[in-house]
């Protein structure tokens, strides 16, 4: 939204500058010149405004972010120059068209009836190339300063986020040492009574909580660890259901999962959400989680049926996803793509994440 407003304001500014045409009065209309008597000069101005804005907008709003963010300077230069060249060609073509349309002189030896009829008129001639080059320069300046401000703001928000997370972490410290020792003592009871199933569940739960408390606080964690935690989480969730319930949850992983790193607890909320909505209290419904790493790009997809969705839960969980979206914006700016498909029968989240620093 904010971006659309920014674009509209910039476009209006460009149109204003070019329509406030500066006339050079008392000169005859020469070849390739437009005038304000027949109005041709306004069309020429509009063409220049549009071309200049296209170059300016493409460079400052798109190319700086896409190419300079990851230091692809050659690609940035190539894209900018090609855009500028294209804009110049378009303006040139529009000029030729206008000259013919308004029956103005197009060559040095040509004499049009306008030259004869209005020998002394306000005219304006502006070659396309300088206009486009100025727009290019302004676009680079504006794009760089805009990027700088955004980065600065991002960094500050990230710091704030960290302070908030740290505070939450402190609150959550119900003495983990006591907690894990107590779990271990309960684990001892299960071992004494030969209850391997309960023992396994306690081990998985403690691993899950340990990950959230200790490892959830670092900047980056092995992707394999995050996925292992997802599997633990799924196993702990399975405990909710009866033995005879055939709960359909699958987690698959492909590609180079090992050796990649990710911000911790970034993927888990999607799975949490899917389990909440995808499976009802009787264990009906299904959830599919898949992670695939290809050349540093993680494709993470969570599909779930919509049978477990109750209105109250659905309203509630919007906050969780909003949080993840914010974290993605802050931690992986311009390096992620999140798409949510909300169909009648199923719900799907597709996340593409560039893991390489």
């Amino acid at each position, binding site marked *: 939204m904010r971006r659309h407003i920014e674009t509209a304001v910039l476009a209006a500014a460009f149109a204003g500058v070019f329509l406030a045409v500066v006339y050079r009065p008392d000169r005859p209309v020469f070849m390739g010149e437009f005038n304000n008597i027949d109005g041709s000069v306004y069309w020429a101005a509009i063409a220049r405004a549009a071309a200049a804005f296209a170059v300016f907008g493409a460079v400052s709003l798109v190319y700086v972010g896409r190419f300079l963010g990851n230091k692809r300077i050659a690609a940035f230069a190539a894209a900018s120059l090609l855009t500028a060249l294209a804009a110049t060609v378009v303006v040139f073509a529009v000029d030729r068209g206008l000259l013919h349309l308004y029956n103005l002189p197009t060559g040095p030896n040509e004499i049009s009836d306008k030259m004869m009829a209005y020998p002394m008129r306000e005219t304006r001639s502006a070659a396309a190339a300088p206009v486009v080059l100025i727009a290019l320069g302004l676009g680079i300046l504006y794009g760089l300063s805009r990027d700088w401000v955004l980065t600065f703001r991002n960094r500050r928000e990230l710091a704030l986020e960290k302070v908030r997370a740290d505070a939450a972490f402190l609150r959550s410290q119900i003495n983990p040492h006591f907690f894990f020792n107590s779990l*271990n003592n309960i684990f001892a009871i299960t071992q004494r009574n030969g209850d391997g199933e309960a023992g396994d569940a306690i081990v998985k739960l403690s691993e899950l909580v340990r990950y959230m408390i200790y490892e959830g606080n670092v900047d980056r964690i092995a992707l394999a660890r995050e996925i292992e935690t997802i599997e633990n989480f799924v196993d702990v969730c399975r405990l909710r259901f009866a033995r005879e319930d055939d709960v359909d949850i699958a987690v698959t992983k492909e590609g180079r999962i090992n050796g990649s790193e990710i911000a911790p607890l970034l993927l888990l909320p999607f799975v949490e959400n899917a389990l909440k909505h995808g499976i009802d209290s009787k264990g009906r419904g299904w959830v599919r989680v898949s992670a695939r790493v290809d050349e540093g790009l993680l494709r993470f997809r969570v599909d779930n049926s919509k049978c477990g969705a109750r209105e109250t839960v659905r309203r509630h969980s919007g906050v969780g996803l909003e949080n993840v979206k914010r974290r993605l914006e802050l931690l992986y700016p311009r390096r992620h793509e999140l798409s949510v498909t909300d169909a009648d029968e199923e719900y799907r989240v597709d996340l593409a994440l560039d893991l390489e620093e």
Partner: protein
Amino acid sequence: MLRCVVVDDEAGAVEVLRGYIARTPGLAAAASFRSAVDAQAWLSTHEADLAFLDIDMPDLGGLELAGLVDRRRTAVVFCTAYAQYAAESYERDAVDYLLKPVAFERFLRAVAKVLARRDGFAPSPPERGGPAPRELFVKSGAKIHRLDPR
């Protein structure tokens, strides 16, 4: 047969490890203690091959006790609820670091490491211990720093 010692101030933890030792062929429980001071007294007159040590104990902690054990004889595996002592435990040349509650499979992996070390090479001081590490991770507060020794 590896003679094992278990030291933990919590009865449940001792019980679990003794149970695991009993289930594992090749391991025998020599003694177990609820206090590191008692364990130290026993270890000064008896021989053990493997010691499972808790870290947070009253009077004498597991890290200190590990410093008093004759390491040429006795391999040390820490077994604790604290996740944040891992780096320090490796500094003490511990063979493994187990987090409670420990699954049996994880326990077996630690035992396999102990056996591999006994068969391969005696616990060596760090200055001549194998190839130089390629990188080193140091945890400070919430951050993990990577050090490149070259």
